[in-house]
């Protein structure tokens, strides 16, 4: 059975990527199961989707623990522990990363022996580009399996996106085929894993839960401001930047509209954005009366900081 796991952010089309690949396998005659996994989060939060494809009915369910292929649509997720990008990676696992950082550099950073393929991330990435990343990734993944034809991939995109307007479908097909063509040299390098065995299994480390005092075992958050520890700024794909030259120090519009209270006012009356907790919803940019808040892709802002 093929076991393929996609990683991306809410809004990058990972559920659709999984469905495109799932449909492509299905059209090629495979038994298929595809499923996205997410919580209560919003756009920008890490999420995964799983695709299983085999020749007989599939009984496994839920997250894929030992993937044959990991596809990462957003390279900023790799260092985020909650995203679990490298969970269950083995030497035989192939990895596709949509990234400008080259493959030797990724090997150096991750210290793993897996084959890594990078897909060139578009330089001018903006919000409008995000949904197409999924099609690119699905196309690349399809090529690595070697069991999905170019025509089938195109048909799968059509089936998944038939409710969208023609230009959107065409754009997605182009991206998917682009991903498919980019990895032509590696066709068929991802192979189905054998079934796991029950012989000599590693027993689970079950424990008896201790009976603990309600002070410990009641689901209460003690002490204020613990949400500070959860750096939701990691969800941001676009960064609002306040251009102080244009700010008229009204001192309330951007901060009042911010749904995460991530904008405060400094002693001089200028607003300041807390980038550890700004999720990049851009409501501030939309509301600012003198248009003093500009927006740049997060990727560019990281490069600027590094420079």
């Amino acid at each position, binding site marked *: 059975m093929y076991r393929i796991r996609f990683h991306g952010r809410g809004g990058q089309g990972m559920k659709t990527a999984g469905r495109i690949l799932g449909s492509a396998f299905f059209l090629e005659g495979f038994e298929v199961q595809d*499923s996205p996994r997410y919580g209560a989060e919003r756009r920008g939060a890490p999420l995964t989707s799983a695709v299983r494809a085999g020749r007989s009915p599939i*009984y496994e369910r839920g997250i894929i623990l030992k993937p044959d292929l990991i596809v990462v649509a957003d390279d900023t997720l790799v260092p985020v522990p909650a995203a679990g990008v490298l969970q269950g990676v083995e030497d035989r696992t192939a990895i596709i990363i949509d990234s400008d950082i080259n493959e030797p550099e990724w090997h150096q950073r991750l210290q793993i022996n897996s084959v890594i393929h990078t897909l060139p991330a578009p330089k001018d990435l903006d919000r409008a580009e995000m949904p197409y990343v999924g099609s690119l990734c699905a196309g690349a993944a399809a090529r690595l399996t070697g069991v999905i034809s170019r025509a089938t991939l195109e048909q799968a995109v059509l089936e998944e996106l038939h409710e969208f307007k023609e230009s959107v479908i065409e754009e997605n097909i182009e991206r998917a085929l682009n991903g498919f063509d980019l990895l032509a040299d590696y066709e068929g390098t991802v192979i189905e894993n054998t079934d796991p065995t029950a012989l000599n*299994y590693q027993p689970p480390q079950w424990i008896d839960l201790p009976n603990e005092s309600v002070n410990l075992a009641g689901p209460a958050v003690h*002490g204020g401001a613990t949400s500070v520890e959860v750096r939701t700024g990691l969800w941001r794909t676009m960064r609002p930047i306040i251009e102080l030259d244009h700010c008229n120090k009204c001192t309330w519009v951007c901060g009042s509209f911010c749904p995460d209270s991530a904008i405060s006012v400094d002693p001089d009356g200028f607003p300041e954005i807390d980038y550890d907790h700004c999720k990049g919803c851009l409501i501030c940019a939309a509301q600012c009366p003198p248009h003093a808040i500009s927006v740049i892709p997060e990727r560019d802002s990281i490069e600027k900081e590094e420079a």
Partner: protein
Amino acid sequence: MPRKLLTGNGAAAWGARLAEADYVPAFPITPQTEIIETLAKWIGKKEMAARMVNMDSEHSMITAAGSAAATGVRVFTATSSQGLLYGLEMLYTVAGWRAPFVLVNVSRGLAAPITMEPDHNDILAARDCGFLQIHCATCQEVVDSVLMAYRMAEHTDVRLPVIVNLDGFYLSFTREPVDLPDADKVREFLPAFDPHETKFRAGEPVSQAVAVLGGGPYSYFRYETHLAALKSLDVYKEVEDDFADLFGRRHGVLESYRAEDAEIVFVMMGSFATKAKEAVDRLRDSGEAIGLVRPRLLRPFPAEDLRQILCGKKGVAVIDQNLSVGMGGILYSEISAALYGRKDAPPIITSFIGGLGGRDIKPEEFYEMITTTKLAIFNKMTPPPRLLYTAQELREIRKLQGIAHVEKEDKANVKAEETKP
């Protein structure tokens, strides 16, 4: 019709569409919302001739569903988790009216704390209300079971509402190949609802279940509901045969997988049971005689069918994806009650609590449950119930408690020690 990939929610919506439901009272809740969204889309495009009404709550929604069913129209509705419990009062009420309709519940663990992922405490809270319950393990079963549920609900010997249950995420958002039943064949299998003489009409006022009764009459009505539910087991078998004849698929009151010649059998419900099937295959590969029994009907409880398979086994491992707080696994007690004192009842029944709030059950945990059960058979001693929970998971909760500034107990003890004279 060729097979197509559908989510569990999509399959549930197709069930309502193929059943040609007339009325859909609705209220959104994750992970069920996709069902009513799909129906709304079809109704809007006139691909489905039904009336959908958004209600102000699940309490009103179930009231509306029961009332409409009492007028003789075919009703479909769906909810999840907190929504089902918010409507719980009306679940008892409309079942008492003997109003037949189908409610799909997409299982999700109950607050508090809050989770999005599935366990069965929501559906089991509705265990005793008078609704019949069908539990699905695949998306195919979801669409088929909705159709079978209408036949059961509307049968004159039954006339009870039915809940079709599927697990959030593991079925609701998971696509699998589904063979959609042909619409004409469905009409043959499930003709339009004929309510006979039991129908409300504005022009012919009658009252239903409004009188305040003493214990004697109350007992009569309540027990008649119970007898109808028991009778529905026979009705189900008719429905099962008719379905198999027309569609070539058979969904019994329970699924028995490699259980006939097994020495030890897993018993569990819902979509996680397909994980158990995978484990059974792997254990069989390694020479172990293991099987699985998955009750599809929980109400009526298929006690006799369970006894026929489980009696004579060396051991049974019951996995409960639920927890009756202060007691343990609910299925465990029901299975034990069905077997106790019977000829050749298995001497050992082990109890495992797993999959709470969607917590995964790993292959090695299934293998270890068999090892535990084998040891219990050897020692002739039933072990205490086991929560599937690992040392690593406790470390994770310690980290979360750290973030939440939870005062550690040992720290409190140290303080107490320090203040001693």
